[in-house]
Structure formats: structure tokens, C-alpha cells
């Protein structure tokens, strides 16, 4: 059912594109359709992040679609030592997004899984490997898409308050996303960005790591929170919801008046 709807939407967008229609009357050119991969964690726990991302992209004039068969990128199994099981899910992703031109993801970690690790999983399966290779350049982490494809830094957002930015590890070290989110935040009206020291230290989530080593993971989160507290920022922003879930969980346990927000939520704010 969901799939059918997705296809209808897709066809509609194609049609709009060919006859010169576009969602944003202010933009100069017809823009290419983008497909959202919202990730399982955003879908189930933080749908507001996906909604915010949709709003920002549509305001910029992008026709957005949502391939309804999507589930997960497969990372939980891959990181737990089950590449075969991860491969089953990865293949499903490849099929679901086969025809997408731009796949925008609100997570550097999930994007990295697709861009970097699918080729490891399918190293010995020539045909799937080709598919993985062909999809990698079409996968865009959200902030990078805004800066490098949409070519914007100021999305017209406003926010009242001080925020600090947490560099999530896979975004930073596997996707090399560091300046982009900061540039986007710097253009948000009313927002003050105050860096924590160190911004680059892991929050301790690590997927199943946080389940297998809960005390170590919890200790890492508390260290992260100490760095956040020193900035006196009221909001922690990141480009990965899983890190934010970890940080928020520890903040709530410590009963601190700090909230976490995905970059998309800040950029959707008016």
C-alpha cells in the first residue's frame, strides 16, 4: 500500500518537473526530486526530525518523496558482527532507493554505513557491489546536501538561545562533516553557537555498545554532559539522532534543563 503511494508521488514529481512546476515559487530553476531516507530511529523515535527535514527541503524548492518500503540501513547488525544479516537489510535498502537521484539522510552515521560499509559487505558479490558503488555518490547527509547541493547556508531559520554543537563520530570522522553544520547554525537568526571542549569526543552511544557495556557508555555520556554544561548552552545540536538520544537520556537521568535538537529541527524553526 505504502509503496503504491510512494510511486504515485514519485510520478507526480516527475510530471511537475517536466512541465516546469515546482514547489517553491520563489526559486529560479526546477529542482531535482530528493528522496528521504529518514532512518529507523527517526521514523520510530524522532519523527519530528524527518518532518523538519521535509520542511526545510520543501522551502528550498525541492520536490520530496519518501520511498515507503524503507526501514533501516543495516548498521546495527553490521556493527554487532553480523555482516550477513546486515547484508540482507542493505540489499533491501539498495532496492528501495534504486531509482532515487538524491537520497538525503538525517544521520551521518547511517549515511556512512551506506557510503562506506556496503562495499565491504558486498566485496565478494559483484552485482550488488556495483549497486552499492552506484548508490554511494547519491547518498547525502542532510547538512552536506544543503551546503553542497542546494548551495545554501542561510535557510531563513530563527532560534532564540545559545546552542552547542556535538560532532557525532561517524559524521566527523567517516563523512568529514565539521564546518557545514556550524556554518548553517551561524546563519540562524537569534542563535548563538558556543563550542564545547572537546566537541569531538564520543557521546558513548555506539549502537549495541551502549547495551553491551552500559556502564562504560553511561560514563562517556556523563563526560559529554560535563563538557556541555560548561558552555551554559540550553540546547545541544547534532546531525545524528542516535547520539542525541544517548545525550538526552543521560541529561534526563541527571535532571538537567538542557534539550537536544537535531540540526534539521533548528533549521526548520521560524
Amino acid at each position, binding site marked *: 500500500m*505504502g*509503496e503504491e503511494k510512494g510511486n504515485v508521488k514519485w510520478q507526480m514529481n516527475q510530471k511537475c518537473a517536466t512541465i516546469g512546476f515546482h514547489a517553491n515559487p520563489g526559486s529560479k530553476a526546477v529542482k531535482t526530486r530528493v528522496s528521504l531516507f529518514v532512518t529507523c530511529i527517526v521514523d*520510530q523515535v524522532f519523527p519530528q526530525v524527518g518532518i523538519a527535514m521535509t520542511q526545510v527541503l520543501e522551502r528550498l524548492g525541492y520536490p520530496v518523496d519518501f520511498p515507503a518500503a524503507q526501514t533501516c540501513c543495516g548498521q546495527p547488525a553490521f*556493527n554487532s558482527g553480523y555482516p550477513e544479516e546486515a547484508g*540482507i537489510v542493505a540489499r533491501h535498502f539498495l532496492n528501495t532507493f534504486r531509482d532515487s537521484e538524491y537520497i538525503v539522510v538525517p544521520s551521518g552515521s547511517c549515511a556512512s554505513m551506506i557510503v562506506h560499509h556496503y562495499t565491504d559487505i558486498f566485496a565478494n558479490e559483484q552485482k550488488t557491489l556495483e549497486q552499492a558503488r552506484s548508490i554511494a555518490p547519491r547518498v547525502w547527509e542532510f547538512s552536506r546536501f544543503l551546503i553542497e547541493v542546494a548551495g545554501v547556508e542561510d535557510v531563513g531559520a530563527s532560534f532564540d538561545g545559545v546552542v552547542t554543537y556535538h560532532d557525532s563520530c561517524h559524521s566527523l570522522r567517516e563523512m568529514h562533516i565539521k564546518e557545514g553544520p556550524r556554518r548553517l547554525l551561524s546563519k540562524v537568526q537569534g542563535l548563538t553557537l558556543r563550542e564545547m571542549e572537546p566537541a569531538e569526543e564520543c557521546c558513548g552511544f555506539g549502537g549495541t555498545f*551502549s547495551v553491551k557495556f552500559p*556502564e562504560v557508555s553511561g560514563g562517556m555520556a556523563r563526560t559529554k554532559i560535563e563538557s556541555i554544561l560548561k558552555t551554559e548552552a540550553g540546547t545541544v545540536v547534532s546531525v545524528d539522532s542516535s547520539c542525541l538520544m544517548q545525550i538526552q537520556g543521560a541529561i534526563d537521568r541527571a535532571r538537567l534543563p538542557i534539550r537536544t535538537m537535531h540540526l534539521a529541527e533548528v533549521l526548520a524553526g521560524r
Partner: protein
Amino acid sequence: MTGQPSETINQTLGDARLQLAIYSATNRLMTHRAGAVRADLLPDYQELRTEANQLKKHTIEHLDHYLELFEKNVIAHGGKVVYCSDSQEVADFVLGLAKERGAHLIVKSKSMTTEEIHFNERLEKHGLEAVETDLGEYILQLAHQRPYHIVAPALHLTRYDVAEIFSKNLGVENEVVIEKQTKIARAALREKFLHADIGVTGANFLVADSGAVVVVENEGNARLTTSAPKIHITVAGIEKLIPRAQDLGVFLTLLGRSATGQPLTVYTSFLSGPRRNGEIDGPDEFYVVLLDNGRTKLLADPEKRQSLYCIRCGACLNHCPVYRKIGGHNYPWVYSGPIGAIITPQFHGVLKDPWLPFASSLCGACAEVCPVKIEIPKLLLKLRSEVTDAQRRQGVGGVERLAFGIWAWVMTHPRIYLMLARIGGIFLPLLPKVGPLGKWASQREVPKLAKTSFHQWWKAREVPK
């Protein structure tokens, strides 16, 4: 996850003093490193890392050639090379030599390789005295502990711990001033140096084209170990080879900076053979023990053999948020931190400590600072899958595998996914299997599932208005 030392890990986590000691030491080492590789001071840092990686890759892939070249050149300068397969052979060689020469006292400078083979204990059993001379190692030897860190072995001890260890073992007054503690050690060890029959060192590099052993240090104990006694024995892993003396330009530039932020450590000794004609001092005999001890097992895997590139700078430990929480002694072997987590399973087999490759959030900080660019997270992932494979062959870990099997099935059946999702079921197969949810929740508030999933939101939105 069997055999996980969670009790001792929790002890470490709960020890505020120890946590502070680990944090301040690793912080300092990180700050020093960052200051030394800054782009304005070392503009070609990244190219040097690439070069170091390529040189190590080349050497490891042609290791037999470089071992033989090294051996030839050691012999040419009057030294001897002894190949040993394991720790027993090293002990046999040293014991045999000590017996022939009537030697009793051995001074040692810091060497992870001899830690690996319990060198001191083996020799002591046969009535030889082997004394560690690096200050940190000396303290640890007196306290019967193993190194907490590759570079800063006693970073977990305070001056008060040292005072207690010294007064108990050396019969000195309780002394808590660090300068004075250092003087006590200097005096005690000076005696040992002057009476030692044999000096044993490790090696940071073995230079094939020169037949030379390179040892870097700050205290001067390695210089004394190699200058005062009449016999110098180097015990080094076969992976320590580099092709040419001129390659030291790359490796020394990276090693000191990565380890302690020093452009060069205080002493770098380039030693090739016994003293030559006319020289007044220096050893009369020069031996290099080339140790396998499992290294050829690592060599056999084209991807994992990069673990052998390690130059033991310790940067990955300092930057590892897990090491910084659990410290060095919770790792099962002398090599701790990320490098320990990748080499220990390869030396001991993945089933000995199956939890080890999983004790990482895969944050990648280790790989970012590794001067020889070992892809540590990638190897951890590979080892994780080797653990689950080995467990399957052993018929264990089936519950977790089954859980991931079900999970994968759900994730490839969108309708089931959507149905289960609404009752929180998509994570259910995983959570109780990979670890009790209660333990996870002991550390944080469990997030609530959203009332409306994105899937549902999108579907509702698509209904024409």
C-alpha cells in the same frame, strides 16, 4: 558476551581518584600531541602519516627479505641475530648466555615485547635478577603490576602510592616529593647499572640497511642499559623492521610527536654492533633476538596484517574514550586500548576474550591519530564478525544470531516492520538478547517511541486535502 570483566571495569569506573588520574594524564598527552602536529609546525603531517603507512606496508609485505638483510648487516658489524619462535626460546637463549658468561644481574629498559613474554619472571625463576630501569616500570616491578599504558606505564599511580611502594621495598623513609622519589630511584638503579652483566632493551625500530637497533627514550636508562654492561641484548618483534636508516626521518618525526608531543625524545640511540676497535666503552657482545611469538599468524591475513605496522606511540590509548574510562588493567593483555583490542584477539584467538572487539563505540578517534594509519575501527568490525563466526562454529551465541536473523527479516518486510513498529517491536528482538534492557536503563532514561511514526505522518500527509 562471556568473560567480560564487568566487575573490575565497574570498580575502575567508580574510583574517582583513578578516573581523575587517567583523565588528566591522557588529556595532557593529547594536548601535547595536538600542539606538536599543528599545521603551522608540521605542515606535512598527513603526508608523513601516508609515507609511514606505505613504508610499513612495504616492509611487512616483504618481511622475510628485510629480516635477512638486517641479519646480514648485524653480522657485518660484529653482532649476532637469534630468531625465537616464542617466549620459552627467548628465556632459554638468555639463560644459556648468562650461564656461559657467569652473568647474574640484568638491567632492562622499557620493552613491551619483554612484558609480552613475562621475561623477568622467567629469568627470576632461574636465579637471575632482572631489574626494570625506566622509572615507571621500576615502580611497577616493585609493586608487581603490569604497565597501565604503553608509554606512561605508571599513570594510574600517585606520588603517595609511589611513596608506599618505595618505603616498603627499598627500606627508605616515606617520601612524597616527586623530585626526591626520582632521586631515590636514580641512586638505587645507578648501583644496578654499574654492576649489571647484561643489558636488555626492546627496539623502536630495526633498521635493515644498517643492521641497527633504534631505541628512543627520555630518561637515559636505555643509554645506560646499552652502554654500561658488557653484553647488550635487544629483544624485538619481527615487525619492528624498517628498510633504511633514512626512513627514520619519517618515523622519528611521527613517533615522539604522537606519543608525548616531543619533536624528538630526549635520547635516540642508533646502535649497530658491539664497540669497535679502539672504543673505550660500549658492549663487547651485541645480540638481537627477533621474536615471532604469534606475529606470523597476524601476517597471514592481508587485511589484518596492518596491525603489525604499530610503532607503539600510545596515541590511540590517549584518544580512546573507552580506554579513558576503563584504564589499562581491564584489558586482558599487556597491550591495552584500541591497539590492544585489535592485536590481542589475533594473538590469542578471538574466543579467548570475545568481548574485547566489542568494547568500542567505533568512534574512530584512534584511527584519526594513528601515525601509521592503522584502520583500527575497520579491524574491530572484522574481528567482531570473526567472533560471531567462531561462536557459531562452537555452537554458542545462537540466541543473538537468531535475534539478528529475525530483525533482518523484519527489516526487509516493510509491512511487518510498520506493524511491529507501532508496538515498539522492531527493537524488541534485539534488546533483551544483546544485553538486559534494565542495565541499559540503569544509565539513562529510555526514550519513548513517538506517538506517530514518520511513516504514518507521511501517509497522512499524502491524502489529498
